[in-house]
């Protein structure tokens, strides 16, 4: 975890959940989207992305379905489960509390 752009596990989970909350996406698109939305700051490494996806699926926060991709290939599309939506909301709240707390500390000290 040396590079600052590397993502801590919990954070990556949150980003993935948030990203696919809009629409079902396959792995490549998820990585692209996170990079694009973060203005190339957050580079998601494949070696972290896929295990994370599989773990989230195993835990049934997200579900996967094979579908047709934009280039007419079979791709694995991930979407949130009901439980995943709830989990995402809870995690978002957590994150906001945490980041504003860190922000407070950084400002005042």
């Amino acid at each position, binding site marked *: 975890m040396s590079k600052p752009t590397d993502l801590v596990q919990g954070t990556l989970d949150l980003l993935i959940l948030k990203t696919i909350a809009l629409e079902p996406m396959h792995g490549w698109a998820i990585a692209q989207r996170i990079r694009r939305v973060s203005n190339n700051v957050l580079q998601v490494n494949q070696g972290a992305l896929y295990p994370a996806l599989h773990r989230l699926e*195993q835990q049934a926060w997200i579900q996967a379905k094979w579908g047709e991709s934009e280039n007419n290939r079979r791709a694995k599309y991930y979407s949130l489960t009901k439980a995943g939506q709830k989990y995402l909301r809870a995690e978002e709240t957590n994150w906001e509390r945490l980041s504003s707390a860190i922000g407070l500390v950084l400002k005042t000290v």
Partner: protein
Amino acid sequence: MRWLQSISNRLRSLFRRDTVEQEIGSELHFHIERQVEENILAGMNPQEARRAASREFGGVEQVKEECRDTRRANYLENLLKDVRYGFRMLRKSPSFTFFAVAVLALGIAANSAIFSIADAILVRPLPYRDANRLVMIWEDSSAYGFPKDTPAPGNFSDWKSRNQVFEDVAAISDGSFNLTGSGNPENLIGKWATANLFSVLGVSPALGRDFRPEDDVPGAPAVALLSHGLWLRRFGGDPRIVGKEILLNNEKCTVIGVMKRGAQFPDRETDLWVPSRFTTAQLANRRNHFLEVVARLKPRVSLGTANANLATIASQLEKENPDSNAKVGAFAVPLREELAGDVRPAIFMLLGAVCFVLLIACANVANLLLSRATGRRREMAMRIALGATRARVIQQMLTESILLSIFAGVAGLLFSIWGTKFLATLIPTGIAAMTGTGVDGRVLLFTLAISLATGIVFGIIPASRVSQFQLAHSLKQGGGRSGVGSGGHRLRDALVISEVALAIVLLTGAALMIRSLENLYHLDPGFRADHVLVMRTPLPRQKYEAFAARAAFYEQVLERVEGLPGVVAAGYTTWVPLTNAGGATGITIEGKPEPAPADVLVPNIRIISRDYTRALRMKLMEGRLFESRDAAGTLPVALINQTMARNYWTGEDPAGKRFKVGGYSEKSPWLTVIGVVGDVHQAGLAVPARAEMYLPYQQEDLGFEPEYLAVRTAGDPMALGEIVRQQIWAVDKEQPVAGMMPLEDLVDENLASRKMQASLLSGFAGLALLLVTLGIYAVLSFAVTQRTQEIGVRVALGAQPGDVLRMIFSQGFRLFLMGAALGLAAAFVLSRALVHLLFGVSAYDPASFAGVTILLAAVALLACYVPARRATRVDPLIALRYE
């Protein structure tokens, strides 16, 4: 719902491994292809685009492996891993594994063996339809000394016609059937049965047909149903037996069927059933009580309702027939309970005992695991440091202990299969044939269940302790010694204390049982069973209709037998001791007012030949025994027992007093008491004697036939068996001779189940004692190892070996004292459960309690001694350098 989804995902990963693997491959392949496309769009040539995409992606195989790993983090996979690891750990310390498995296997074997017996007696289904609705009905003649009397036909008929609670009621009575014709004459144990017997029981014959009502009327052609056993034994399983004629008591009788195997009512001795063919007069008889009555409850009628109904009918009958039915009640007992008989309390006692043994075994192994756990602290600390959760560590430790207990369960099951054979004598004959014995699915399931439970019970304490280790503390400490902390001490102490307590309870129970058995053996039953051969020669009615013919048979047989070399004395009797609890008749004492029917005196009656009392070495207390002059036509005489003398002629000398069988108006002669003999325990060694009279067979025909021949021999009684039989056949070559055995066998049989109970309980108590010794020893030697340094310091500072010895002893003995106090208190409460199994000893017998405590104390001292001695040999120099 999430967990359901999650489980299905996990299962999919586990069992559809190939599909999942393929999916991971194509998912990653897609990613790379997509990136290649993107790169080409950005202007690279295809080769370059592919290379860039691959470079960016990194190691495909690593990513795959990681995906697999996340999917694999799975309880089942963990379990398999733990099992494999557990196996390795157990293999690494074979002596620990062997000891733990052996200790537990003994405990489990004891449990599953006793369970299989309990199962056969209490649980296994009887071979009858809806057997839980079957009951036996008895007369309650407590007022006459027979609280559970065989009903009279008159009462049976009225119960049958008046009740509102039974679907149907059937009756059987003892029959003796001499089978002649082909082969040796044989006396069969048969039952006279009402035609509805098997329809009440709900079982139909394996071959042929059941009885029909028309078989069961006076004068109907004689028919018989054979038991499966007789059919195989005597008729070679002849499939065409149905319709054949056999000669029973010199009467031609058609075999109409063969009963199902196991359907052996009332017990496995029964050879055949023949319709009772009661006449109307017989069915109205309320004087002779000789039936066994079985009934089927209507659906949804409870035992309580049935008993209330029976009580109502009994009180009606009491009013209607004051002569015969005064103070005669009626009650029903579930068939199962009836068949299980008095073994039930013993079975529950033994189940309790084996449970205690298993608990002690668990405590022992838990203790061992605790000491092992200290050795494995670093391993566990390492695991926790590397991210294993507490639950994960507990799971792994429990897997190991359950592995142990499953090994033990398998070993225990093998032991118990062997043991059940030996225990089968505990199963009453009434039930053994029906349910069978041995290991069945239920026993297997039970063994599996207790094995798992055992593993959890002894594993959970050490496992939860290990997982509580303070990480840093454990890692810092050296690997070798030091304990689990003071909490660990307390835990081990508590385990040893409870072991001692459990052992005290078991030992006390065993001591009480052994003392009871000893009392029974030393009890004077009123006769000497050694060197006595007994056999039965029931005379067929048709052939020996005349009193004179019977008398002549007895006379000739006795004369011939007495003349044999090696015979000391020989006598006939209606029943030798331990074969019939009853056989009683009402009497009137001369000079006393005719009693109300409810107050009639009903002593036991035994019709004997002159030398029967001498053959059994009964004691003459007063007067004289029978002599040759007490023959037909002389003064009618009687011998009475001490109880009869004491109760009927209280404060008087009974010699020369007269009484007669029946009331004043009866035509029977007055009998003069010529002597008093010692009480004979007829109904069982542990059962006190009733009032009893003995009359010479020649003087009066009272309807009781002497059929037991007792021969006192100089040498081995069985050695004379064949010779005696030949003498009987010399008198009547068609006369069967049945049940030849030494009288001692009857005594042994009477004590067999008690003996078995006492020896089992002692065996279990012995096992407990051994385990407790090991337990105390293990704890103390562990403590000595731990305190080596401390002891070294003490010795260096001048402590004498005696001081060290005292210190260790007091540590061990403190545990013993606490356990003993607890155990004695528990034994005091629990021994009450044994009351029904004891004889001549109080459940609070101080000698047993004290003896057990002293024995255990001695053993505890011994267990303390070895570690204490080791402590005195601690060399302070080495001890202080230690660590």
